[in-house]
């Protein structure tokens, strides 16, 4: 079905310790806030917090498989992190299409990531899509 303003998709995920380890190995980011519970406590968190990059990997999954799907190309991502996500939290990423342009082959969407009834992250994305994939305006 062609993409239209108001289209929504939700994706549930849980980040586990093995995924944290895999991301550490991939990124070489060994920041203590992500790897050291004691240090995280000293900074006011309940424990080591999930890498933002892992959350963005889940955003990538949504973009590549749901909206806009396998034919899209990301042009812009903007993200604000609002609260920590902890290992084992059940999170929901919700993405809603806010703008489409069929002549330009562009869609924009806003997204939120929520966990523990808290807003963890918000942001916007822009993707380039074949115009045949976009609903008429």
């Amino acid at each position, binding site marked *: 079905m062609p993409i239209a303003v108001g289209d929504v998709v939700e994706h549930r995920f849980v980040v586990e310790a093995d995924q944290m380890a895999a991301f550490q190995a991939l990124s070489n980011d060994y920041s203590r806030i992500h790897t050291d519970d004691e240090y995280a406590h000293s900074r006011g968190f309940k424990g080591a917090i999930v890498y933002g990059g892992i959350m963005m990997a889940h955003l990538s999954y949504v973009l590549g498989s749901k909206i806009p799907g396998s034919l899209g190309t990301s*042009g*812009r991502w903007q993200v604000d992190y609002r609260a920590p996500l902890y290992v084992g939290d059940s999170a929901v990423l919700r993405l809603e299409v806010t*703008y489409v*342009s069929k*002549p*330009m*082959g*562009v869609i*924009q969407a806003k997204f939120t990531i929520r966990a523990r009834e808290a807003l963890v992250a918000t942001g916007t994305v*822009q993707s*380039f899509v074949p115009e045949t994939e976009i609903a008429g*305006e």
Partner: protein
Amino acid sequence: MTIDNAVFAKLTEIARTLFDEYQGPWTPALRSEDVEQWDSLATVQFAVMVEQAFNIRFSTDEIVRLDNLGAIASIVAQKKA
């Protein structure tokens, strides 16, 4: 070409955020080839930002003419008139 100053000021504000590496003068004569960051992809991003800022929609014919600030300002002013 007559330029609406208010439209041009708002356009320039948008362009400054998108082409943040550009250090030269912001004039209606500024063309895409004058700005390293202003490639075809950026033209589309710029057009989207302009559409949203001015609450207008560009046609396919207009999109291909969005390659300099003066032309964009002129098209926007016509649409807002």
